């Protein structure tokens, strides 16, 4: 409980510091959802988003990985090295060993709700202090980036 309070306080501080709110705004005329994060129905293995199961196949798709690499260079490499070295965010080395493929795809396509709920991401935010930007990746972009991450982790 104490830890949760710290996280919430941290969240409030971050929010207060940011004139460019990272909050998701719904586009209806009704009030945007303002309820505090409920962690009860959150599955930390799956994450939150549209992906349930990602079929990664037996072998690496080299073409897809190459495309993922160039997307990552444009949209991700500003903050992530492909080694285990932290830049703004953590290095990518080993990420596919730590997380399920669909957790990764959910996170990179739906970062804000997950940062609000995922215990590991909240711990990560305390270290990095910058919320991972939503880079508006398409489903296809996300899948290609996942393939590049797999290649980066040595998948053949």
């Amino acid at each position, binding site marked *: 409980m104490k830890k949760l309070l710290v996280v919430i306080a941290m969240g409030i501080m971050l929010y207060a510091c940011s004139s460019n709110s990272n909050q998701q705004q719904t586009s209806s005329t009704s009030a945007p959802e303002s309820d505090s994060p409920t962690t009860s129905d959150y599955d930390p293995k799956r994450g939150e988003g549209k992906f349930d199961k990602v079929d990664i196949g037996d072998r690496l798709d080299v073409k897809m990985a190459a495309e993922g690499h160039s997307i990552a260079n444009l949209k991700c490499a500003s903050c992530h090295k492909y080694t285990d070295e932290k830049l703004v965010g953590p290095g990518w080395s080993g990420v596919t060993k730590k997380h399920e493929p669909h957790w990764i795809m959910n996170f990179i396509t739906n970062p804000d709700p997950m940062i609000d709920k995922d215990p590991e991401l909240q711990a990560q935010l305390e270290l990095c202090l*910058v919320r991972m930007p939503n880079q508006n990746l398409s489903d296809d972009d996300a899948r290609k980036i996942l393939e590049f991450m797999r290649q980066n982790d040595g998948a053949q």
Partner: protein
Amino acid sequence: MIALFGIATTFEGCKPKGAGSAVSAGAAEKTYVAPGQYDEFYNFVSGGFSGQLSVYGLPSGRLLRVIPVFSLDPEKGWGFSEETKPMLETSHGTVPWDDLHHVQLSKTDGDYDGRWVFVNGNNTPRIARIDLTTFRTAEILELPNSGGNHSSPYITENTEYVVAGTRFSVPMDGDDSDTPINTYKKNFKGTLSFVSVNKDNGHMDIAFQIETPGVNFDLSRAGKGVSHGWFFFSTYNTELASTLLEVNASKNDKDFVLAVNWKKAEEYLKAGKGKKVSNVKYAHNIYDETSHTSTSTIKNEVIVLNSAELEGLCYFIPCPKSPHGVDVDPTGEYIVSSGKLAALIPVFSFSKIQKAIESKSFEGEFAGIPVIKYEAALHGEVEKPGLGPLHTEFDGKGNAITSFFVSSELVKWNIKDLKILDRVPTFYSVGHLMIPGGDTKNPDAKYVVAYNKITKDRFLPTGPELAHSAQIYDITGDKMQLILDFPTIGEPHYAQAIRAEKVKDKSVKIFKLEENKHPYFTNGESAAKVERNGNKVHVYVTTIRSHFTPDNIEGIQMGDEVYFHVTNIEQDWDMPHGFAIKGANNGELLIMPGETQTLKWVPDRIGIFPMYCTDFCSALHQEMSGYVRVSPKGSNVPITFSVGTNQPTDTQ
């Protein structure tokens, strides 16, 4: 009643006793928009002498945005970045500040379609189009043969044309325009420009101009429904005076409303009856949201139709004393023109005008244009409505509401029987008024907003100058009820309001990096670089929370022109970054996600110049900074750039 008006006039601009009690019960409930909730309407309000367009939420009166149009705006980089500078170009060069008057939402079938807003530049005559997906000015078109573009940018029911009528008649452009002012009656002409609008991309073009006698055109409205195909312009100074107009243009008992048959004009144009004029010069500026750059092109040709020579094109209708507004009711049958110095409101009938033309019910000609008999065109007059009638909007239930400047009030009356139904005071001296959809076929008559010219004691004093006050009245019942005051920017002239649903879901959140066609786009951090080309240095910079790439730059020399092309590689809504460097005479930049913008910097001295992000972007925003080194001309310091590890490597 007359005595009461007398008193009101005497105390014009003074607060009537007990004005506070004019606020009805329940006003707070009607205007309160709870935190996180949205307003019902976008209200686009002219910023008057600020040259900008403001956007308020209704009914809260909250300021949502100021859209820069005809004036520099440092807050948005408008006119400071290399990409936006061409938008303020005219045939006279850069004009940094103009006077924006009227607002027109684009229409399809006589109702707002939520695509564009058109506004007019009054001083250096121009029309601008604002794109409602980006809330940015997309296009500005200058008008030749013009002085004072006031009766503009009123539009036809399918946005076929946006018009511009000259408030100040001038000699037609060209060599003969150097003429004595006392030849006004002979040499000074008015023009009515019909600007076509491309249905797909909104691009504007002057389809034709109509040359008219040198009267002053004040306001205008397109016919709609039954009167579609016609346009109505109010005129004053039919005396054709060029000095002390306050007196000399107020002598005639009646001035005119000019009825223009623009379908007829199209026929004449097609038949080659227009005169091609090529001694004109006007700028056409377009902003492209894919290349994130704008172009300014000078054009030299326009086609002019002559109102006196082409039969059936124009008709004058006499209208009492210097009419100001000329407004067409939702059916298109009734045309209300308010003689601002008259103590009545004439209402003309479109069908009677047509009959008068058919039966040649004319009282004579003015400068070669037939003048229809007043009674032949008249539906009727609203008797003793108040003093100084200016503008009229409609509620779609058969009623009109007219603003009265001199007697400071709004008056509601019935169009058919011309009976006055209600009146409420405004605070003070109302100019324009607005009902959402009030000029469409289907008004959304929940509120009327009064845009007042005088503020005095309505808000806390702020020195000699005060924000103009606007007032919202609930008009859902029989009686108009004042429910809110709100301050406005500049001086609001006309305004329009549209249901939020018609606009908000089309709002662009980011520009896609994949679609960025800027010639100096940086495709990710690995493409960031610094290139020298003679004394021009192009810096390809990226921004993302929270660093620049590159952020250490050396090798700049005195005498260089440095262009920082900053690409914001964020792809998240509401994540702009700013860019500022010490001593930059071109100001700063603000770059939207996925956009590229350029700051030109000419260093004035050697040394180290810090640069930083000006728009708070993350918890590490304060760290978002870098250094640029400037060396003497001819120095052997090579161009180097880096981020993360400074280059060249520390050797000391």
